[in-house]
């Protein structure tokens, strides 16, 4: 099963990049997703919204990807096997706002909740409310 990604840019005081995922995020493609975000970061993206509206399924490897994405967007070296958990420590009580999630389907939302990864993210109902919130926070 595959996953397609689409990238859109929203111009504004702080430009926002929207990364829409479609299909299934699992062990076969989570590394590609990490690589995509790495490229976006290198190209200057500093505010990222991941649109999950068309993501039907997320396996546990998807959680690793989300974790790595937060690291990348916080400017930390990604996927360092010796330092991977540090990023989460530094989050402390405040949820980071570099990466926002939008519109997860119930199945994906359940995985986020069950695994506590929803603690890491602000999860918005859809991409539009996510854009509004990201613009307001900027």
């Amino acid at each position, binding site marked *: 099963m595959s996953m397609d990604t689409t990238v859109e840019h929203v111009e504004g005081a702080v430009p926002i990049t929207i990364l829409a995922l479609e299909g299934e995020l699992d062990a076969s493609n989570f590394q590609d997703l990490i690589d995509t975000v790495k490229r976006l970061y290198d190209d200057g993206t500093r505010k990222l919204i991941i649109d999950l509206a068309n993501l039907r*399924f997320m396996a*546990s*490897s998807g*959680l690793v990807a989300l974790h790595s994405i937060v690291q990348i967007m916080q400017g930390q070296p990604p996927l360092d096997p010796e330092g991977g958990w540090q990023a989460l420590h530094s989050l402390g009580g405040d949820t980071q706002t570099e990466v926002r999630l939008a519109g997860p389907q119930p199945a994906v939302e359940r995985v986020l909740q069950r*695994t506590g*990864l929803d603690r890491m993210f602000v999860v918005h109902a859809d991409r539009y409310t996510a854009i509004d919130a990201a613009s307001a926070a900027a």
Partner: protein
Amino acid sequence: MKVAVEGAADLDLDAVVAPFRAVDPGLCLRIEGADGYPIASTTLDPPGLDAVTRAIPGGALAGGRIRVWGSAAGGGLGTAIAESLSAALAAAPVTDLALAAQHAANARRIEEELASGRRLQRAFVALKPPDVPGYDIASHYEAAREVGGDFFDLFRQRHRGHPLSVVIADVTGKGIAAALLMAFVRPLLRAAIEHTTGPAAALERTNKILVEERRSFLFITALAGRLDVRTGHLCFANAGHELPLIVRADGSQPTWLEGAGPLVGAFPRLDVPEISADLAPGDLALFYTDGVTDARSPSGERFDEWRLLETLEDTRARTAQEVVSAIADKVGEFQGPAPPADDITIVAIRRLPVA
């Protein structure tokens, strides 16, 4: 990368791809044998598949195929590369059997190491459940083709009344890193269970040790439970793991036991709730890993929770072993002949009806 082909040409994959990379820098190709397994491939970023996964005996390419991917592959370049590759194979006169033999020896050694890792992993996992009077316990553990990260543990605790401890866990990711972390965490969790007041505290302690002392980008979903074998009272804590199921003897709809906290290893504190359920005589508690529900059919469908519930409908009032086997068989049938992509672990604990 050069690949030696027995009785044929010394194949330089990078040279074949190079002219096309000028058009599409993301272009990669992979040669698969007739059996669908990769023979050789190019990738842009090591460590990827950029290795000979086995020697190429003469004729192995017959019936195989060349897969090309990259942003421009859809525009006809894929065919062009396949043709160019076939031409290279036909034209080059050199055969480097020594190199092929060396690659084959390396591949064999890695295969052997992995096989020995798998054997060791099976030994870690409790294959024979403890004998608990009044209970019927069964388990199923099936490793993925690679070394996997699932584990479970069933043991009688030293505490008063010798409650039965049940642990089921899954290290995210596969391969040697996941297996090593599993081997590290399993005894850690067991010790934490013996030395804390309950499952939530045991998971909290394990998480603390992992977060503070061991750093890795792998996470662990883990469920720890304690069953008072005298009363049937089950108390458990769930750190991001699949929800357990209770199948009542009275024929009512199986219920998921809700209540979970974050994965082990992801945050400084878990704060998982402790959940309680009572097993009445004849009731069954079922624990499993995502290898069951995420199992995929050849057409790409997921096994999902509903098929699991359906299987349980058919197996009501059977022994724990029959329930576990029914699920494992149904998942196996669903997946078809392909080896499981992920480990599959199932544990069933049934309180025997009063005779």
